[in-house]
């Protein structure tokens, strides 16, 4: 299986008052055609910035400081803005967390969909409209022709996210980067959107990078899982293996924090301490201050070690 998207040693830095902070610090992963990769981590772990870095959408004061992102054999880091623009929305699409904020409130759905078609393909408006209606139908929006004329505030949260997904699918992209697209939705709606996404990637053959903090979502959706902590991937492997038998203490901690894994009425288990601020990362393994297995060896940054098809970045894997 050749990798469609190959990320190697990706480093994204933000310069600010506290000096240069590495939000993403040497991230490696690859995504094959039609594959679903779950990128899991807490807030501030750098998972969203990873997604933006791939798209070339990191805003100042941030910048991609190193590493490589290869898409279909083509290097994206350092690519000219116009060339990147042609890929964005056409071959790599992105979906954001809050559908209330993602759509422009003062433009009609029609405007927002048609401009996406016309930005990449020189087709007549009627043809663009036809494609927009088809995409809305695809994501399960009833009477798409009528809905097309409406504005975002006339849609519910779940419906808006469907519109966003429809926009992402307009050009049948090879890769969809979904940045917590179900987090802002009701649980019942979450289920529907997840189901739809699963169906759509299977139908269109798109590869999916699903960024989330929700392990339950990943368990049902992803083929493989990468767990991020403080800008680094600490564990990576097939979803079944990583979730059933985690190698990294942090992954273990995350799994234990899921309420369903605890006995009813019992005290919820949690990872002690808090996600460290990037400005005050402990030297060595970033997780060692919250880790029950930490010892002297952990004051150096652990290398990635391979165990069959799995990777783990820990001196004392479980």
């Amino acid at each position, binding site marked *: 299986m050749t990798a469609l998207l190959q990320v190697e040693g990706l480093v994204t830095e933000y310069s600010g008052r506290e000096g240069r902070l590495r939000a993403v610090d040497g991230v490696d992963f690859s995504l094959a055609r039609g594959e679903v990769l779950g990128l899991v981590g807490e807030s501030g772990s750098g998972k969203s910035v990873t997604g933006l870095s791939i798209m070339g959408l990191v805003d100042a004061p941030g910048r991609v400081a190193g590493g490589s992102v290869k898409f279909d054999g083509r290097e994206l880091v350092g690519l000219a803005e116009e060339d990147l623009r042609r890929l964005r*929305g056409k071959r790599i699409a992105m979906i*954001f967390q809050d559908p209330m904020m*993602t759509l422009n*409130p*003062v*433009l009609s759905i029609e405007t927002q969909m048609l*401009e996406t078609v016309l*930005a990449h393909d020189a087709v007549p408006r009627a043809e663009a409209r036809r494609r927009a209606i088809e995409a809305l139908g695809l994501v399960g929006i009833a009477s798409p022709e009528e809905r097309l004329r409406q504005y975002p505030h*006339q849609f519910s949260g779940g419906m808006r996210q469907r519109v966003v997904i429809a926009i992402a699918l307009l050009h049948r992209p090879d890769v969809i980067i979904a940045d917590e697209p179900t987090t802002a939705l009701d649980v019942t709606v979450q289920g529907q959107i997840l189901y739809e996404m699963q169906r759509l990637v299977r139908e269109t053959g798109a590869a999916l990078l699903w960024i989330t903090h929700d392990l339950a979502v990943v368990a049902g959706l992803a083929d493989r899982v990468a767990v991020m902590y403080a800008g680094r991937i600490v564990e990576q492997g097939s979803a079944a293996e990583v979730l059933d038998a985690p190698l990294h203490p942090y992954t273990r901690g995350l799994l234990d924090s899921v309420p369903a894994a605890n006995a009813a009425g019992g005290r919820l288990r949690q990872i002690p301490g808090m996600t460290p601020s990037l400005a005050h990362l402990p030297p060595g393994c970033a997780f060692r201050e919250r880790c029950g297995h930490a010892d002297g060896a952990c004051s150096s940054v652990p290398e990635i070690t391979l165990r069959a098809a799995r990777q783990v970045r820990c001196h004392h894997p479980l």
Partner: protein
Amino acid sequence: MPVYVLRRLAQTLLVLFVTSALVFGGLYLVGDPVEILVNPQADQEERARTAAALGLDRPALEQYGIFLKGAFTGDLGKSFVFGRPALQVILERMPATLELAFLAMLMSLGLGIPLGLYAGLRPHGFAARTIMAGSILGFSLPTFWVGLLLIMVFAVQLGWLPSTGRGPTTELLGLQISILTWEGLRYALLPALNLALFKLSLIIRLTRAQVREQSLLDYMRFARAKGLPRRRVIGVHLLKNILIPLITVIGLELGSVIAFAVVTETIFAWPGMGKLVIDSIFQLDRPVVVAYLLVTVFMFILINLLVDLLYSLLDPRVRISEAKG
């Protein structure tokens, strides 16, 4: 929508009534116009004759009653000084003030929005910092001083533009307009620039603040993620969102440009309403002052109504809530 407009116009009548009562009462207390209008050497009989001719010998309430009665038929009284209907005197001067205000607004929008956009999109560049520093000057320098400076530089030293008065006018739809010819426009440039400076600074700062705020929102990022060209992301997605707060301020400012062009009109001897009303206040020409204020209040209300209607064009969310209410 028509019901909404009618309701707003009914409110206007009430505001006009209250304004007229306040101004009428205030001017009555300030002094007796007869003292100013007649020759100081005139005898008592002469004074009484003048007062009777102007209707000033009657009790204040009766005078106001007569004014109201006239006002309902569109007659706001005769100017004590000019001896002609006050409204006519004001309307004659109005095109001069309106064209000045229009030109000033055009300048501040035409320069302010692009400069504000630039400063907002490249906030840390040298040019952006210069623009922002300049806007602080525009805010804080007094209008009259800037006016004098403009005259000194462009009229006296460089000799490019005339410093006082209004140029030749041409008739357009029955109005005397001067800015349609280059010769007339030359006269209007300096006063308009003077009047525009404060608004320009305001619009630059407001636009920049809006750009900075809106650029961080997800819809901007999504617009880029869709692969839209930068021109469209900024020119459509961003601009349409920042126009909404801008319109509010522009509406308010347009009213104040028209109403308070007094200082600029005085410095540049521009024959507009502002200069007229200052003269009229000095001469206690009550009908003109009252009529001027009524016209101004009416204009303010009209502009605000237009702004509200414009809102509903720009913002689909307003459109809906209005249909319900």
